[in-house]
């Protein structure tokens, strides 16, 4: 993974000094709440329901074992001994003290980490596929470009105060796992007809209050121009995006208002001036950064391992875990492993300091000292030998990290919700827990099969509810908490936004509602169909009919 040189280190060190002084001025009364807000937000610090929340950047989800050990220490020292992985591959601390945040940032800087631009109206952490570099369907490893874009976007002076937050995702695989269509800019890397790296550029996607999938603004962009083309897009947005209404300030609203044709025309007109300017990426720079992402020194291994095969046949529990949590790998004899942060009945994405140390040790021992966070809020060991899988499983299982539910109904994506977040209309974690307990039967779960259930506590959609096969949105009705259900959303190349099935439900009703949706699926499905396929084939009506069957009249 990328390692800082003196220039990178100096920037994070100077950021710590800058933020320390900003905090000092705030505490001394030299900055008002309103003046400090944009400053602290650009450093990931929210003021939440109970305490501040600090969001630490995990660039494109990559972490080293050393960094995770440090995060464990920080969450033990400054928080309550746990952290929360978010849907944007970042780590959030829920209980730090405002006064401690400069010190936390100083600690982070010692392991080449920071909280720069993890919040606020600026270019946020750039996200990508958690299997980047190891996925068999990968065409181009997008991490070097993601790192180049991270550096370019860090304190970009022209885009320091945009109308609203700005999220970029990059992907280099046939099957999109980075949801490029749900980002302000999505960059899909591919090899063009002449064998060169090119980018298909999507713009104006986003979830939130107004969920919209992005439009293609350019089918073919040579990689050298990635930064200048983004500058053209963001300049048009910075100048013309709405600033009068926060709910209409995302780039998707501008793209929609102008139409993609007109928006493209303006961006291209701007790009005429920016193309080939000094921010054009050089081959030398791409090569320098790409060196940090070269394939690991894999051993030459056969495709099969006898001890692994034996363990699978003798241990059904191990076999179930292998089926769900172990993924194909480019290199023969290697696998990627997802450590589930979704044990049933716990807050999805939460991890204790002790577990962080365990994962870091696993990474050191079995996966070249690196790991990744996924937008599904799990952790990944990307390079594990087949022969080591059983040992990894045993240790993970002993530490509550081996729930065999990846991609299943209980692998719920969930925002912190009303328990923590001051934006939320309703709690989300208790709903996730209740659903997990309702389906706490592994055979039944595996029979239901692939199903993505996403929960957001408000329409800001941090829990990506629009693209969940089943999406749950917390809403406020006259001061009480209700839940609106959508079905038929999907991430990936054939992404779609879910359809609301009808009037909302109380928290107590939610596990039963999900059960009723599953009943219809189990009754209607063909042999090959996943839940989403059945919804797409038969439509929303049969599901709606079953859910509202009894209390339909007075709902």
């Amino acid at each position, binding site marked *: 993974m990328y390692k800082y040189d003196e220039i990178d280190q100096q920037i994070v060190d100077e950021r710590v000094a800058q933020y320390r002084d900003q905090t000092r001025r705030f505490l001394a009364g030299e900055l008002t709440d309103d003046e400090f807000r944009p400053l602290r937000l650009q450093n990931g610090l929210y003021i939440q329901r109970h305490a501040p929340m600090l969001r630490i950047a995990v660039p494109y989800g990559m972490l080293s074992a050393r960094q995770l050990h440090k995060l464990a220490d920080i969450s033990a020292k400054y928080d309550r001994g746990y952290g929360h992985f978010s849907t944007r591959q970042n780590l959030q601390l829920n209980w730090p003290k405002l006064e401690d945040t400069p010190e936390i940032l100083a600690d982070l800087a010692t392991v080449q980490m920071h909280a720069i631009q993890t919040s606020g109206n600026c270019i946020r952490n750039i996200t990508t596929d958690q299997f980047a570099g190891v996925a068999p369907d990968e065409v181009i490893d997008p991490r070097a470009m993601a790192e180049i874009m991270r550096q370019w976007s860090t304190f970009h002076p*022209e885009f320091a105060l945009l109308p609203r937050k700005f999220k970029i995702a990059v992907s280099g695989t046939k099957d999109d796992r980075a949801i490029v269509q749900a980002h302000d800019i999505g960059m899909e890397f591919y090899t063009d007809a002449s064998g060169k790296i090119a980018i298909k550029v999507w713009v104006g996607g986003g979830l939130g209050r107004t969920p919209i999938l992005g439009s293609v603004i350019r089918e073919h962009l040579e990689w050298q121009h990635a930064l200048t083309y983004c500058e053209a897009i963001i300049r048009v947005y910075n100048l*013309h995006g709405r600033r009068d209404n926060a709910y209409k300030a995302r780039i998707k609203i501008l793209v929609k*208002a102008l139409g993609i044709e007109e928006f493209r025309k303006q961006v291209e007109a701007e790009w005429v001036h920016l193309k080939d300017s000094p921010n054009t990426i050089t081959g030398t720079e791409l090569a320098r950064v790409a060196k940090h992402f070269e394939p690991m020194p894999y051993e030459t291994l056969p495709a099969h391992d006898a001890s692994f095969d034996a363990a699978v046949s003798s241990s059904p529990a191990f076999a179930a875990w292998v089926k769900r949590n172990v993924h194909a790998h480019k290199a023969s004899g290697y696998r990627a492993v997802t450590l589930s942060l979704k044990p049933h009945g716990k807050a999805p994405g939460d991890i204790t300091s002790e577990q962080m140390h365990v994962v870091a040790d696993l990474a050191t021992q079995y996966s070249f000292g690196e790991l990744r966070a996924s937008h599904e809020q799990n952790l990944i060991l990307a390079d594990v030998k087949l022969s080591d899988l059983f040992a990894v499983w045993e240790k993970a299982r002993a530490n509550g990290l081996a729930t065999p539910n990846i991609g299943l109904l209980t692998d719920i994506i969930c925002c912190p919700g009303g328990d923590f977040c001051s934006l939320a209309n309703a709690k989300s974690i208790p709903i996730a827990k209740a659903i997990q307990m309702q389906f706490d039967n592994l055979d039944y779960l595996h029979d239901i099969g692939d199903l993505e259930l996403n929960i957001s506590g408000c329409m800001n959609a941090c829990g990506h509810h629009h693209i969940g096969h089943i999406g749950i949105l917390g809403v406020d009705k006259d001061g009480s908490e209700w839940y609106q259900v959508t079905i038929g959303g999907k991430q990936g190349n054939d992404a779609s936004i879910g359809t609301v099935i009808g009037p909302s439900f109380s928290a107590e009703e939610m596990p039963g509602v999900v059960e009723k949706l599953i009943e219809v699926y189990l009754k209607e499905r063909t042999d090959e169909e996943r839940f989403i396929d059945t919804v797409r084939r038969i439509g929303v009506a049969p599901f709606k009919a079953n859910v509202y069957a009894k209390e339909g009249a007075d709902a």
Partner: protein
Amino acid sequence: MSNLITLKNDVANVSQDDWTLVKLPPSQVEVRKQAGKVVLFSLTGEKTVTDEQVANTAIPVAGKIIVPLSVFITRHSELANRVAVGEVGVWLATHELLESLIENQNDINELPIIAVFVERFADGRIFSLGNLLRTRYGFKNELRAFGDVLRDQLFFLKRSGFSSFVVRADRSAQDAIASLNDFSKPYQGAVDEPRPAFQRYNRSA
């Protein structure tokens, strides 16, 4: 005490302001300055400065003045002689269109100063305006930021081509100078240093 910081050869100083800022009289019409320009102008044609305001703006008869863009355009014949001797600068607000200045002024370097008014700290349009004035339209003279200008914008303003800053009256300009140098080696190319770090330094380490 003046709250004007001027940047000369990368050295910042608090200095006396020899320009008089000409303000528009208050308007009775509600303006939606934070709405996007495209929405406001291109789609609706709505103006944010009224004809009355322009007509009623009091222009001092002598001295160096910075006039509002709308006044500069509409009352240009009144000002032509003074423009010729370098006594007139122009200011615009972040929601105004730079293009209307360019269309109405053949040589913008005839203006010794252009100032941009930022009403709210969080309004980052000012950075794009500075960038465009310097890189697209080749403006070489003093480029000033005024309004809700606080020290934590200064680094970005400097990088976007601004050369003077009127810090908000209730804050110390002297203290603010320190923030001009918050970061020593920024990553990306911008107006003040067009080359990104990967062009400026040998990073092959």
